[in-house]
């Protein structure tokens, strides 16, 4: 029989079919069952499926400090005003000169009146926390491997392995770490790892009254964070340091450091 067009030889067609059809069947089955995107079932929790991150919308923050308060209560952070896993900073930008930043007790008790002699251009609040960098300087400097990036993208501290040498506290460009006064180990935000692995939100996100903080997962299109990233013009803090932070700030311009 004469053929006009080149066609796939039968042997090749059968071979490719044998390779690809099982894959398509599996894909169809996965779609029909509806893959769970957040950690809903604790028993099924697989860290490889997650890459947690946070969004912070500076335009929405009212500086109530409930996040810092909830964080202390949830994670049993010492109550002294030197120890914070998350805190709220107030930026005061004068018409001329340097921006001034304060954070009395992390913002938990509110902020006093601005005592600025110069004319003020604007002022706003910036919640701060560990940025859970993809390229974390604290992880690089830890001499014993007590701080590390977990498989789900959260930078954690191994309390029983930390020797309290404070290298990581020095290395963190965001000042997100402190030395626990009684345990004598480095401590910092874990994105409330004990909550997120059970499908709950971090305590600060749970209590934020204006939904300034958005928690979610990178790479999952249905995650609230991905919506946040699509709709907002986001920045990361100190991008020039190549730490690849995973806390994205909307409305943060050059003044926020």
């Amino acid at each position: 029989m004469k053929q006009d067009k080149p066609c796939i030889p039968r042997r090749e067609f059968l071979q490719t079919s044998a390779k690809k059809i099982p894959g398509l069947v599996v894909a169809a089955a996965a779609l029909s069952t509806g893959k769970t995107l957040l950690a809903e079932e604790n028993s099924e929790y697989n860290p490889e499926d997650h890459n947690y991150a946070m969004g912070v919308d500076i335009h929405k923050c009212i500086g109530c400090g409930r996040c810092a308060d909830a964080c202390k209560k949830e994670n049993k952070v010492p109550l002294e005003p030197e120890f914070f896993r998350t805190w709220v900073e107030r930026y005061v930008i004068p018409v001329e000169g340097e921006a001034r930043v304060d954070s009395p007790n992390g913002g938990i008790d509110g902020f006093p009146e601005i005592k600025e002699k110069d004319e003020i251009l604007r002022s706003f609040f910036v919640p701060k926390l560990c940025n859970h960098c993809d390229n974390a300087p604290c992880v690089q400097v830890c001499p014993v491997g007590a701080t590390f990036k977990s498989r789900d993208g959260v930078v954690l501290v191994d309390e029983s392995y930390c020797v309290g040498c404070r290298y990581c506290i020095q290395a963190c460009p965001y000042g997100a770490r402190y030395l626990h006064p009684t345990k004598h180990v480095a401590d910092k935000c874990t994105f409330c790892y004990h909550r997120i692995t059970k499908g709950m939100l971090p305590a600060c996100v749970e209590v934020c009254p204006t939904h300034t903080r958005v928690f979610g997962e990178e790479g999952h299109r249905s995650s609230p964070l991905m919506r946040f990233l699509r709709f907002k013009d986001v920045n990361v803090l100190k991008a020039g340091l190549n730490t690849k932070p995973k806390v994205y700030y909307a409305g943060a311009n050059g003044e926020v450091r």
Partner: protein
Amino acid sequence: MKLSRIPQQVIPLTIIFALAIVALVAARQMLVPESFGKYGHYRADAVEEVASHDISYAGIQVCNDCHDDIVEVKQESYHRGLSCEVCHGPANNHAEAPDEYTPGAPRGRGYCPLCHGYNPSRPVGFPQILPKMHNPGKACMTCHNPHAPTLPHAPEECSACHREIASTKMVSHHTTVDCRTCHTVPKDHWSDPRAVHAEKPTDRSTCGQCHATGADSPKIIPRIDIETHGGRYLCWDCHYPHHPEATL
């Protein structure tokens, strides 16, 4: 190769090296935790340890499961986006043993201003008040329902807005005189104060209700001949009605 062919000095060295290697392997076995290096340069068990910490905040879903009456009220209000634990504090204890633990609720004036107290750094449009000026001494809950914080009606007391007049009047002889004795207040003034004004007295007869010689009022009130006193001036040209200076 025969053992005698190996140079004599190498034998003790080999033994020392072998022992050192055995000691190193033994030390590693003893000192390095079992799960170290399973997923990277860290102890894999530490992840489980961090994940096993206790939870304090139960989350809004847990609250909503039982308190559906409050959910209904809150759903319609400006506070619909708020988690219960923002004000009531961590309540996981309560969720697990509702009868043993009861979460607190801030009832004074201290808590609401953390969000609603005036602060120029807050975003424009966020509802704020000046705690020192806004009905001082009264708990926020007297007028506002925290689950549905919009005022159900305009404040009936004039002092809610006219606080400076109220506090002046409070220390004067007119302290017990109701605002409506002298001012006629249209109903719409409460809901739309800038469009509809309360009326002020226009002639001496208003003061005369109490202060005229023949007025039907308690004897303790000072009297004056309302027709002749002060010549061509009106009463409030000389006396400030919210703090009249004449003594008994």
